[in-house]
């Protein structure tokens, strides 16, 4: 699998480290219920299809990327720098 880093160009996946889902929102720590925190920490979607996920380009530019990947065939639809995505206050 190759990931096209927005800074470095197409690179082999072994240059990257996978983190996981990109769009988790951490609940407000003190206010959240135990169930909500458990969901945030442990519960993950496991989609057969499009998945937005974080990858770290550790052997390259050291940037975090948000990769939109189809989990069925590894087709990558989009790659953006995590820094440049719009995030909410609780992200």
């Amino acid at each position: 699998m190759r990931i096209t880093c927005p800074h470095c160009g197409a690179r082999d996946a072994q240059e990257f480290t996978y983190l996981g889902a990109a769009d988790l929102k951490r609940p407000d720590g003190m206010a959240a219920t135990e169930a909500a925190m458990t969901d945030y920490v442990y519960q993950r979607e496991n989609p057969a299809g499009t998945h937005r996920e974080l990858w770290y380009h550790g052997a390259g530019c050291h940037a975090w990327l948000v990769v939109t990947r189809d989990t069925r065939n590894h087709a990558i639809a989009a790659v953006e720098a995590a820094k440049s995505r719009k995030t909410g206050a609780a992200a």
Partner: protein
Amino acid sequence: MAEIATVSTAVSWAPRGAWAGIAQPGSFGATGGAGVLATLLDGFGLATLIAAPGAAPALSRIVEARLGIALPQAPKIASGQAHDAIWAGPDQWLLRAASRDGFAGLLAELAPHGAVSDQSDARAAVRLSGPRVRDLLAKGVMLDLHPAAFAVGDVALTSIAHVGVQIWRLADGPDGSVFEILVPRSMAGSFWAWFTASAAEFGCAVTAAPVAGPR
């Protein structure tokens, strides 16, 4: 009053180049003409520049005013009279000076615009050329270094044999493409082990570049 002892406990500290004890001039591998030429580089000044948030244009302006080179916004190297600005990630660069003379003063001028850190002794650098240089690099670099894909002045951050490297292409020499590679000093031994094993079949001549200016 007792005589003050004058026994010297001073240790003689001498700077060691990054390749000391690892690589030395000579030749190895196949005989009958060197397919790969390696030039060990030493004595240069090197610093990482990381622009403070929003300060990249200001940093670039001061580098341009001082050295006549703009900080590249893409993976490129920009070379001036005695300095190179080498892209090293978004809003990050390496600044290399041919000599360490006055380098600390230059860095002090840049420091207000970001994180500036002298790395002169932290990297080992080698220039590679020769008719088989791309065959050699193909054994370790996952990128296409063909002139059509990797132009003169292009820079890449990647890895060779699990060692993080920065590689760029200089103007062609008599034998074609010329590359420079920078590796973390602590990994220079590992890199050199890969290099000697990989270059042996092509025959390799190793030289040391003359050191410019005082260390």
